[in-house]
């Protein structure tokens, strides 16, 4: 891949809850692995949905290999803080003494933005990790927390810089911000659904991205449904239902779907007009059904979703 040299190493996938961020993140990560890039898929805030998607049980802060070239880990703020502090002070016993302390625990928890900043810091570390001959990871795909908190996380390094002003943590988060805030290194992919409220929220999210807007590479419009018939054929042919028992209800069934298809097109247009970013409609009914049953996704389903996303077309 000639593109891989220029494309951002870190991709943050975010959007409101329930829009399918995990599936989109997973399909993107699997796509990267399948084209030969060493990829790590990062879950945040203690979420552990990725392993089930791949038919595995449980993942944690330690890397789990899902496929050749594809590993995953699940960040928790606690583990990320421990990681950071142990790196900084180099004595695990001291960490335990301070952080597992009944009195100090709540105090540490109360440092605003710390949870988000240390998780972002871990993402940064992964993107910089070296292995013989180069970077350990060609791509770090982050299944970022839902809207409100996703934003907080993206802005957490900057918040932390304002709060600390000086000192080792300030230096640390500044380094993180320099990379995470730079569109050459980091990309944001928004995930939305085609309904009115999710679209409004995605646009709101975009507005609140502020300086991070430059990171946006695309919007994935998830769970789009196919049209069962062309509008003209339906107009010309649906009269036949007048003679069919339950004709009105049957007509309603198809017309609701046709409305939904129109709604999808309108949503894509609105999202593009608001953000200026390319919008990709993703549809995979079979895969959506697996989500209902909680079955693992088949690799071809995930790759088909990735093909609809067209990462290289988005510069990812």
């Amino acid at each position, binding site marked *: 891949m000639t593109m891989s040299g220029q494309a951002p190493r870190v991709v943050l996938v975010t959007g409101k809850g329930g829009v399918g961020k995990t599936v989109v993140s997973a399909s993107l990560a699997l796509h990267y692995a399948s084209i030969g890039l060493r990829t790590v898929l990062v879950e945040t805030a203690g979420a552990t949905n990725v392993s089930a998607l791949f038919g595995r049980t449980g993942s944690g802060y330690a890397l789990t290999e899902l496929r050749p070239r594809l590993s995953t880990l699940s960040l928790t703020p606690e583990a990320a803080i421990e990681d*950071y502090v142990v790196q900084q002070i180099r004595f695990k016993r001291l960490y335990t003494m301070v952080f597992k302390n009944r009195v100090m625990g709540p105090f540490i928890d109360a*440092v605003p933005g710390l949870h988000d900043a240390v998780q972002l810091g871990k993402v940064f570390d992964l993107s910089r990790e070296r292995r013989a001959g180069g970077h350990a990871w060609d791509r770090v795909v982050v299944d970022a927390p839902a809207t409100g908190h996703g934003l907080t996380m993206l802005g957490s390094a900057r918040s932390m810089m304002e709060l600390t002003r000086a000192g*080792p943590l300030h230096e640390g988060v500044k380094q993180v911000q320099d990379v995470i805030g730079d569109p050459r290194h980091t990309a944001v992919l928004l995930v939305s659904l085609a309904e009115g409220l999710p679209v*409004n929220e995605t646009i709101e999210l975009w507005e609140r991205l502020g300086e991070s807007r430059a990171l946006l590479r695309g919007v994935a419009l998830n769970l789009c449904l196919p049209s069962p018939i062309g509008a003209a054929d339906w107009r*010309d042919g649906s009269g*036949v239902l007048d003679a069919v028992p339950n004709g009105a209800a049957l007509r309603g069934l198809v017309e609701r779907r046709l*409305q939904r298809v129109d709604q999808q097109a309108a949503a894509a247009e609105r999202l593009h007009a608001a953000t200026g970013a390319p919008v990709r409609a993703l549809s995979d009914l079979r895969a959506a*059904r697996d989500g209902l049953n909680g079955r693992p996704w088949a690799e071809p389903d995930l790759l088909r979703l990735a093909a609809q996303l067209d990462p290289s077309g988005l510069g990812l």
Partner: protein
Amino acid sequence: MSAPHTRVLVCCGSGGVGKTSLSAALAIKLARSGLRVAVLTIDPARRLADGLGVGALGNDAREVPLRALFGDDGGGRLDALMLDARSTFDNLVRRFAPDARAAQRVLDNRYYQFASTRLGGSHEYMAMERLLELVQSGAYDVVVLDTPPTRHALDFLRAPERMSGLMDQGVLKWLVMPAGVGGWRALEFGSEAVSSVLKALLGEGTVGEIAEFFDAFRGLGDGMRQRSLAVRALLRAPTTRFFLVSSPAAAARAEALFFLAVLREERMPFGGFLINRVAAAPPAFSRGEWSGRSPAEALALDAVDAQCAEQADLAAAHAKAVAALRAEGPAGAACWLVPEQSGELHELSALIALGAALPDAESVWGADGTGA
């Protein structure tokens, strides 16, 4: 001050299952049955305002013009609010500070300004505070609370404990010198090691500012702790009900069950499941019996056939999902199925239609309304 007649209904669930819409629909339904209802969302995405069509919502109650909309005159009333964590926190500080100067000292503290809006859990805690205010105002029969997605809702339930832990004198003793020593001294810790760890993490200046915040907060501690206890009691009151909102999707069901376990552990009263967007079986149709008189008609019949097959599949899968959730829940737990709606749920008419599938006051709290 306390108003035990105000009942509380909390809607919890994972993201994207329609908690906000169902909260609004429930509130509308209860108000139309003659109750005085407030619905509070802590969702910063302004969904409830969209849903109720009242424009922007804020920290103060805004009346939804039910009578103008329905011509009903059942004596009910519906107010909608969106939590503003910062102003709620500011009000709390003013209320519990010994004097105006002490209040100002907290409000001016840089760490406070960060903490009051960005502190993990501060939104959740302030929502609880606002809930308590609404209940204690005595102005409502029912307060409906729309919560953030499950993992955050967990913070939400534990926020009172967490905040009172934070305000615990133990922390203050560790962090701050006794008052009157002349300002704060950040790191009067028992151990040099502890202090070096904090410095290594945060830098000396930041630790100092945080210590100053705690010092300034000292006078407020007792009042805040009392509030925490009152919220704690309210969440466990016999008239409080937690509804777990789910969709048929496996991930949403898992979140609902996760939350159910938390409710049990915390001894908070479970009111039932609300399962949203459940597909209904399609009308009967047999493609083989019909032939179109034109290619377009044949295509139309094919489209109907395909939609029916898809819908039947979906309805069967949803029925299985609902059965699975009920099997995991407590025996005899109440369960309301909300059918999939066509159209946009931020239209008021759609919210009213949703109400038909939702519980009324009697099925939540019993005929006498006590919940006993």
